[in-house]
């Protein structure tokens, strides 16, 4: 009890940083009945730690609950709240107002994804591409059948792919990619990075079948190493690196 009261005292004595305000511009668009996108503006107070998702939720709570936004974990784990913030794709929950260094924050739906409404977009294409590259271990035996041992890996073998296993399928990379901006058939940096993740896994035996899938006219060769995907990735996956390493197999530099 004494401990609880001391925490309460500590919280009460913690000086709050003076609250500032920011103008939040939210893109509003419903493809079912709107002909063009409109922006609604709100002035919202914020603190040092306030995120873009926080102020969007403030708008929903106090001004307009009809704003459509997808979110869940609020800690950059679920990959739900990807959106264009001041022109660049970012996770709303992972972006603080203070780091944007702007008095006006414009939030729009991610590009290269069909809009459901306002800030919420459809992920079918991303998931289809992800599924297309066979995102699972391919091998004849299984570690879950009896008489089989667990597939062991050395720490060095894990290092080869663990970075790419961090992907949360938020779609920011696909939104930033210059090829995705015009190419509706491109498999995209997310799926290509995941193809590398499994090809580089020492337990996997599906390299050839995956390389065949991505070696087509809208596959890996439509990546031109512009690197925007890696710059926007909120989990440090670095899809550009994975794609170039994957291409090394097709060019004969890796085996």
């Amino acid at each position: 009890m004494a401990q609880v009261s001391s925490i309460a005292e500590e919280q009460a004595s913690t000086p709050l940083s003076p609250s500032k305000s920011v103008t939040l511009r939210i893109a509003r668009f419903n493809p079912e009945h709107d002909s063009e996108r409109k922006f609604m503006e709100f002035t919202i107070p914020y603190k040092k730690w306030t995120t873009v998702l926080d102020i969007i939720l403030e708008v929903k709570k106090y001004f307009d609950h009809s704003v459509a936004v997808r979110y869940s974990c609020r800690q950059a784990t679920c990959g739900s709240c990807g959106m264009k913030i001041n022109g660049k794709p970012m996770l709303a929950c992972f972006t603080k107002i203070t780091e944007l260094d702007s008095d006006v924050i414009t939030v729009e739906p991610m590009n290269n994804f069909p809009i459901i409404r306002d800030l919420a977009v459809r992920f079918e294409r991303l998931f289809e591409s992800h599924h297309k590259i066979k995102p699972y271990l391919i091998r004849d035996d299984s570690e879950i059948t009896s008489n089989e041992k667990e597939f062991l890996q050395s720490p060095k073998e894990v290092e080869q792919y663990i970075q790419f296993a961090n992907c949360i399928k938020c779609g920011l990379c696909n939104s930033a990619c210059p090829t995705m901006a015009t190419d509706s058939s491109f498999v995209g940096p997310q799926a290509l990075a995941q193809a590398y993740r499994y090809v580089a896994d020492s337990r996997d035996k599906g390299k050839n079948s995956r390389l065949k899938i991505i070696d087509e006219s809208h596959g890996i060769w439509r990546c031109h190493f512009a690197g925007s995907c890696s710059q926007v990735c909120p989990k440090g996956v670095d899809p550009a690196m994975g794609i170039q390493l994957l291409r090394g197999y097709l060019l004969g530099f890796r085996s």
Partner: protein
Amino acid sequence: MSKMRESVIMKIHYGTALAAVALVAVHILMRLTLNFAESLEYENVIANYQFIPYAGMLEIILILLSIHGFNGLRVILLELKQGKVYEKAVSYGCVAAMVGLIAYGSRTILMVNMGMV
């Protein structure tokens, strides 16, 4: 042709680029062996064309750059718009343009080399 794997096409794209860099460098250096304007005088240019190794090099450059250039154009066009008919038209159109340019350039090289001017 249409079923050539993209990796094969892109290996050709890279290969033609590297080979063309070396040969174009020789081609430009030939312009600088003499004074630049002098090297472009009619007699000197005819002499260049009639020197078989040089004419052969021009022919190789023509082929390399046509392949590289039109494949580059194909890549850009394929990324701009999609659709079965469009993509077929782009692929065949680029091959036709490539063949046409090679034929047109070869005609010049061959005719000048054989003294038909």
